[in-house]
């Protein structure tokens, strides 16, 4: 197989670095709730995203033509994939998930194996979806993250047995920041399609 080698290497390396950091530094990264939730988990997802990019860079010419009309695929417009990723995202905002990831090997396995797979599904789905669908799922994720962040900040009691109260507040602030940063970045990255859609 002939690959567009430089891109493959770059994305592959990115995936390995993300995975390496998330797994190699798991003790310090899970010591704080904020790092666990806002650094380690995103890194694992990012590893999947990069891996999908690398894989995609390997099959250069055939795909771009099929992109505008992905005739009846399993992942039509990426909706099933994005739905799955949204539900998984919701699951990792439940405080019990963070506690269980430290004590229950099944949840830990789901974290280290499932999240990269979710990242892969996310990238593959985003490729197939259009602006409206992306906006729907992104908006959905962001309000959820903001509300959960506010709940974390608002709680006078600890929600995670394994983490300190201060840290819970920082996670809450981080989630709210995420809810602002994510759509801002997306808007910057997709200014053109959004502009085109609005001026249709």
């Amino acid at each position, binding site marked *: 197989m002939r690959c567009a080698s430089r891109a493959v290497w770059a994305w592959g390396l990115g995936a390995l670095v993300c995975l390496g950091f998330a797994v190699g530094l798991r003790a310090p990264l899970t010591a704080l709730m904020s790092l666990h939730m806002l650094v380690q988990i995103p890194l694992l997802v990012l590893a999947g995203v990069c891996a999908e990019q690398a894989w995609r860079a390997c099959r250069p010419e055939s795909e771009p033509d099929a992109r505008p009309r992905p005739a009846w695929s399993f992942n039509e417009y990426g909706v099933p994939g994005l739905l799955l990723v949204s539900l998984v995202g919701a699951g990792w905002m439940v405080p*019990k998930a963070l506690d269980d990831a430290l004590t229950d090997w099944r949840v830990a396995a789901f974290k280290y194996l499932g999240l990269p797979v979710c990242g892969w599904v996310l990238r593959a789905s985003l490729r197939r979806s259009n602006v409206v669908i992306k906006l729907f799922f992104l908006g959905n994720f962001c309000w959820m993250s903001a509300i959960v962040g506010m709940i974390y900040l608002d709680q006078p009691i600890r929600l995670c047995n394994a983490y300190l109260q201060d840290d819970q507040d920082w996670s809450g602030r981080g989630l709210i920041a995420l809810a602002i940063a994510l759509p801002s970045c997306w808007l910057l990255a997709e200014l053109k399609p959004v502009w085109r859609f609005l001026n249709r």
Partner: protein
Amino acid sequence: MRWILALAVALAAGLGALYGLTDGFTVLTAEAARRQDVARNPRPIPAVQVLYGDGRIQSLNQDLRRDGRIAIVNFFYTRCLSLCLVQGSLTERLQRAIVEHGLQDRIRLISISFDPRERPSDLSRYAVRMNADPAVWQFLSFAQPAQRDAALDLFGITVVPAPLGEFEHNAAFHIVTPDGRLARVLDLDDPGLALLAAKDEAERGLVPAGAVPGEPERRAGEGRT
């Protein structure tokens, strides 16, 4: 219509994972899950040697069996400056309620320290500070680190070291029966409910595991008294 199938699979997988994580959409925190699990399946306490304020060391299970009273157990450490003090004053109120209702021959209080630095004198001094009546309220600590970890694990107490040499830990009232079972876990905010649950347990005597009704029925019971 393959994508509809895929959509259904994605929905089922996502909701299934959420269902499993939240014990069937009933709990959001590990603490709530612990309380629910104990209420459904009372847990036998492992063999553990405890240290008393007067310096003697004994098996906790033996103490429970010999004493014969239902114990309301909570966990603390004597150097604590925050949560344990609140817990301590709530427990003191509980002690007063036990004596007022004449329940001291059926129910008692035990506070167990998880701090390995604790000496017997720390415990006895703390007991004085808390106005504890030694006949109703005992202060213990774990004699052996390995047993301490096993016991905390069974009770579901997670101790996290915090700045300034403090610890943060989940606090609650634990109803423990004389035959050495952790039967219920009740919220710290409601000592009355803990007393009621202990009274229920005392009236029930030795019941087979699994026959303990769930939270809603107890809450209804609270209205009766």
